[in-house]
């Protein structure tokens, strides 16, 4: 642990020196003595921020009260608190793929653009251009407001077991269709080995289905004029690929798997491929938890028949409009996503940072315990990333309705009729939501 801290500190040294220089010109302490409340989602990234929170308090003199809540509960708490009109937090972590549109439409968080443009409020070393264009676009609302600051981008990649591939002489798939061919060849139930593992649990499974749909010509599940595109030929194609993989190449019981069961199965060497978020990589390389540490391949999602994309998900920090401490809160958001903390995310395998500078840090990449291939995959995925979920308010209902249809398909139900049924069931929900 100490070694890693030292390493991160060394790698961050240039940024620190730069930061100290900038600090002389910028008054970080203008809000000293004030107190803010920060609500974070419990994950490796929030652990890093909590661990280094003292840095911020010493830099600014602002006291920080923090909470770190599991993802699902955090999403509910955030929405309910916002709806109350007086949220208890001044800075909040937001899952863009779930809550972006809801928060944007209700205008619950403040537009950050005036703050970014204000040199008295934004440190010169903030360097907004360093944030990835994709991450900024993802955090920007349809009306142009940047009401959250990008923190983390989650690309969906394919984790593959090199040993299993080598044993059967199978090559890494070059197209989405080839995933099935490879998975089929690698499946051997008599040995308890399967070519594929993926999310089957309703709601969670939509991200996997979306990984296939974004490779089709259609790409989106909801059109730009907010019409559902979930019973089209492309949607059927994505569902067929999903169903074939889950029925023929995945371990029994995958219908109830969320990412954690998939991770366990893959890390114990029972599955050859797993398509999921890049943020799940760390335990796979941990020899105390994984039987395949050092044997994991990190593959960019291959192209589909229409496009070449990987699913993009992400989180960001928002400052409530109702907050009385917007100034100190903005200082916290700047600090939390500064180059040093983003490098910490990167070197600790806590996920892909929203900033680009860590990805260019060759020294950090060389000294990481992750193989070079992991970083190449991450950088390449960043180039082809595309939002996996539609940007609509009832996104959880969308995931639930389509998710149930997918589990029914795994159970043997007719694909086209399940899609039609789910589309018909969700259409009025979407229409009502769009009417406001």
């Amino acid at each position, binding site marked *: 642990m100490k070694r890693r801290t030292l390493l991160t500190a060394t790698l961050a040294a240039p940024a620190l020196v730069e930061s100290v220089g900038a600090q002389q010109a910028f008054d970080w302490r203008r809000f000293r003595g004030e107190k803010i409340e920060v609500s974070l989602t419990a994950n490796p990234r929030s652990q890093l921020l909590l661990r280094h929170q003292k840095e911020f308090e010493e830099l600014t003199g602002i006291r920080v009260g923090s909470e770190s809540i599991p993802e699902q509960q955090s999403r509910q708490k955030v929405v309910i608190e916002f709806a109350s009109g007086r949220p208890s937090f001044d800075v909040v972590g937001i899952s863009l793929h779930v809550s972006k549109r809801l928060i944007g439409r209700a205008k619950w968080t403040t537009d950050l653009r005036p703050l970014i443009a204000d040199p008295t409020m934004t440190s010169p070393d903030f360097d907004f251009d360093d944030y990835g264009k994709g991450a900024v676009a993802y955090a920007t609302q349809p009306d142009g407001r940047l009401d959250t600051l990008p923190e983390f981008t989650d690309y969906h990649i394919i984790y593959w077991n090199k040993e299993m591939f080598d044993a059967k002489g199978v090559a890494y798939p070059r197209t989405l269709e080839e995933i099935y061919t490879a998975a089929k060849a690698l499946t051997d139930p008599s040995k308890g080995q399967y070519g594929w593992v993926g999310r089957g649990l309703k709601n969670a499974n939509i991200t996997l289905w979306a990984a296939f749909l974004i490779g089709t010509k259609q790409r989106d599940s909801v059109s730009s004029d907010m019409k559902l595109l979930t019973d089209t030929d492309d949607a059927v194609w994505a569902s067929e690929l999903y169903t074939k993989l889950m029925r023929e190449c995945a371990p029994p*019981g995958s219908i109830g*798997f969320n990412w954690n069961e998939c991770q366990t*199965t893959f890390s114990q060497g029972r599955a050859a491929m797993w398509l999921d978020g890049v943020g799940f990589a760390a335990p796979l390389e941990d020899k105390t938890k994984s039987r395949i540490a050092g044997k994991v391949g990190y593959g960019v999602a291959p192209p589909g028949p229409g496009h070449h994309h990987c699913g993009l998900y992400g989180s960001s920090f928002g400052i409530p409009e109702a907050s009385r401490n917007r100034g100190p809160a903005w200082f916290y958001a700047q600090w939390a996503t500064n180059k040093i903390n983003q490098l910490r995310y990167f070197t600790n395998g806590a996920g892909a940072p929203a900033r680009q500078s860590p990805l260019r840090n060759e020294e950090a990449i060389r000294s990481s315990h992750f193989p070079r291939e992991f970083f190449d995959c991450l950088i390449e995925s960043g180039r082809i990333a595309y939002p996996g979920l539609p940007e609509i308010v009832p996104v959880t209902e969308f995931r639930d309705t389509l998710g149930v249809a997918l589990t029914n398909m795994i159970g043997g139900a007719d694909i086209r009729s399940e899609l039609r049924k789910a589309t018909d069931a969700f259409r009025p929900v979407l229409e009502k939501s769009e009417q406001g």
Partner: protein
Amino acid sequence: MSASAGTGVAGGVATPARPLRRNYARRYAGFIVPAAVVVVAVIVFPWVFTLYMSVHDWKIGGARSYVGLENYITLFSDERFGWAVLRTLWFTLLAVVAPMVLGVLAAVCFHRKFPLRGVARTIFILPMMATPVAVALVWTMMFHPQLGVLNWILTSLGLPPSAWVYDASTVIPTLVLVETWHWTPLVMLIVLGGLASLPTDPYEAAKIDGANGWQAFRHITLPLLMPFIVVSLIIRTIDALKAFDTIFVITQGGPGTASETINILLYLQAFAFYQMGYASAIVVVFFAIIILLALALLWTRSRARIA
């Protein structure tokens, strides 16, 4: 307060007696205020507000509008709600019967004297002390189809592995297994208390009349235990109806909707879809179902008392 005020006698002249109760009610009415405030705040107000919300279309983050009985009409035509009701009743039936049968048997066993009985009783009631969420997480790991210990045991014994909670056909019985493991000790404790309080005379009389062990159990023990069994039946039914934590942690209502009970559906509508109006309508209907079941159980209890 003077003594005469209560008796209605003043200066030796008989006056019409004023009702005692009325006086007390007037004088001490203030004392019930704290309790009344609590009852209104934590029971009456939430209920009235739930009823109010159930006739509104209200999604968090959006506007609220009065829709009359529309939520209820939608609810009764909602196939998913219908299945959730049936699933809840099925789960409740199984999660009541299994712990009841096993709990009574365990109580009879632990009532007998044998070496280390105290230790055995303590071990038996341990599951009840565990936190439901922690229990559910441990069971989830054990149910893993490839890496769970349960399938390892099955295959070691030459039996085929099971999909446990990862298959629509086995998910409810498997969740009942967890409930049974967790709550059988409670039934056992209640019934064991009943057994300890039973008189010995009827058994002596039965022995003289030549009754065997089963006959004594069937015709003496069971009838005398019936009030205790009914109490545990009521507690178990309420527990099973409100079961949420175990199901949510282990399956989240899946696979698909195979273990989606009313509580899970209610949670989804309220805290995942933020449809507060519709969720409130579910609460009202679920409450009506619980009232009906409670009345049935109370009727059973009164019958058991008469018997």
